[in-house]
């Protein structure tokens, strides 16, 4: 039982702190806006920062084109008739060493949304992992949730490849939308990580070969790649690497700045990043660029980071088509793409699904003469959890 009354002082402090942070954020945004207006030309920033990025000394954004950092673009609020949008999301049941049966499950769901008046199609794919190789790591422990997350990302991208390959014959714009960054988010720490990234990039290649445009959609992005770039613009080239941690706007994120610069329906200039994952992406001809978009309404900005391969951003009309599609998709759900919300719903493994699956798993074990039994801790928690 939680004694909320004992937390009154902490709750009051939290409220006061939030008010102070809001004031600080307003001041920081004013500073960031001034830096943005005074930023050096994109080409010169790129010239200075690219070598640092190649040495792993620059984690921030790099201007992807020569457009000024203040550049903004707009697009229609409806994509061309015939555009096809395939959206995918995933969900999982993590392995639980206290459960009666050790397994994990990844389910991916997708919605194929055609702008032709037809009913969208929904698809799912389930993957059950129960073999020792899948569940136990080299040290004999149950695999970490991060490993499940990697597999989920690969499944999502493969599923997106399947859905777009099924649409391959169409001459219409074909968009492949996934929830989260397109740039592989995990550090490469060993051969298993490298293989995972290879599989992910292979799926991205299949999507490209199907003629589709991959898009990673990051809702409420938390990074400050652009703010770091603006800070670099305030420094002399020789001091950038050393003074990067001194950025006084550490507590701000890019979306706060973008909420003040992008009007509803607008997107920013294109940027890129130079980290280790990006190098692997680039080797596979999938260097990832990103921009920010405001998919909200006047007075209610909703900032998203949109990640695409460079070849998408550079293709004639592709940026406008994906921008228009995202605008239309976001109109009915307060700034979040409808197809992604539905893909999430389709993919979701509910508590009821989990109970049904575990019942079926236990039946199989009992049929094989094995009586499955959760740990005593899990059993006790299940009683308390019903309160």
């Amino acid at each position, binding site marked *: 039982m939680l004694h909320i009354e004992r937390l009154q002082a902490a709750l009051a402090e939290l409220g006061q702190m939030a008010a102070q942070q809001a004031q600080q954020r307003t001041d920081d945004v004013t500073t960031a806006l001034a830096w943005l207006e005074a930023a050096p030309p994109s080409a010169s920033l790129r010239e200075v920062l690219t070598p640092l990025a190649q040495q792993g000394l620059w984690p921030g954004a790099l201007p992807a084109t020569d457009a000024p950092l203040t550049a903004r673009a707009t697009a229609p609020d*409806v994509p061309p008739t015939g555009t096809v949008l395939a959206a995918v999301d995933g969900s999982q049941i993590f392995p639980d060493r206290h459960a009666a049966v050790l397994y994990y499950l990844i389910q991916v769901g997708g*919605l194929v*949304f*055609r*702008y*032709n*008046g*037809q*009913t*969208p199609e*929904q698809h799912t794919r389930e993957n059950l992992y129960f073999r020792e190789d899948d569940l136990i790591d080299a040290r004999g422990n149950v695999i970490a949730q991060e490993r499940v997350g990697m597999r989920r990302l690969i499944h999502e991208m493969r599923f997106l490849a399947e859905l777009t390959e099924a649409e391959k014959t169409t001459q219409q714009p074909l968009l492949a939308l996934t929830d989260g960054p397109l740039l592989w988010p995990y550090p490469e720490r060993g051969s298993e990580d490298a293989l995972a990234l290879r599989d992910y990039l292979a799926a991205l290649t299949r999507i490209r070969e199907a003629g589709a445009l991959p898009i990673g959609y990051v809702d409420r992005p938390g990074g400050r790649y652009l703010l770091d770039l603006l800070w670099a613009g305030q420094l002399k080239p020789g001091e950038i690497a050393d003074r990067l941690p001194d950025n006084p706007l550490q507590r701000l994120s890019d979306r706060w700045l973008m909420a003040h610069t992008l009007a509803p329906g607008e997107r920013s200039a294109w940027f890129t990043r130079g980290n280790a994952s990006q190098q692997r992406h680039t080797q596979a001809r999938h260097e990832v660029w990103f921009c920010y978009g405001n998919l909200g309404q006047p007075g209610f900005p909703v900032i998203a980071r949109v990640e695409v391969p460079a070849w998408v951003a550079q293709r004639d009309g592709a940026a406008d088509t994906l921008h228009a599609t995202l605008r*239309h998709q976001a*109109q*009915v*759900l*307060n700034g979040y793409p*409808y197809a992604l*919300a*539905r893909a999430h*719903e389709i993919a979701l493994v509910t508590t*009821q699904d989990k*109970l*049904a699956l575990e*019942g079926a798993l236990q039946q199989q074990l009992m049929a094989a003469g094995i009586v499955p039994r959760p740990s005593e801790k899990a059993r006790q928690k299940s009683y308390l959890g019903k309160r």
Partner: protein
Amino acid sequence: MTPAEKTISIGNVLRADIRGFVVASRIPEPDVPTFGTFVRAPIQQGQADLIGLVYNISLQDDPFLKNLAVALDEDNPHYEEIIRDQRDNRAIPVEISVVAVGCREGDRTRYGLPPQPPMVLNRITVCSSAEVCEITRRPDFLRALLDNRDVPADELIPTALRRAAGLRPSEQRDAFYVDAGRYLARNLGRDPVRLERVLRRLELETDE
């Protein structure tokens, strides 16, 4: 079951007691059972089937749909695909309440409350025509309804009788109704107002 009939599963048991149970369902609108539908649920490790009648169907709150309802305009062609998706693909969550009227154990039918309720997550299926005819072969299936004050029995009884009669050859229907009417008269003899209300509704149902 006639060759044309198919087994329709309507969902899984969500909660249950000896007098009935509630089913959680996500089935498309055409397959949602109607008020008075006979359904069965396995009990006693599948050794028997509880037979019950649907007496309430409630559409659950769906925040997704609620959110869309504010923004969508049915006449706006820009939203045509979204409206189709909601209507054709998304089955809104439904809770179906069932009252027990008896159970079947092999070829034997027992009327009244079952020996135990169905277990949570057991699959519920719509009864075939043959099963409905069998459970309603005697009017004793009405007993559990007459004794249950928590269900709209006075509405449910006429609906169930009409449904059961409709599955019988026309020459047997009058006898079926007379038999049921006599049973009701015997059991509601001390409550003539209620008896008249039930019979009047039965008369209206059969007139339709």
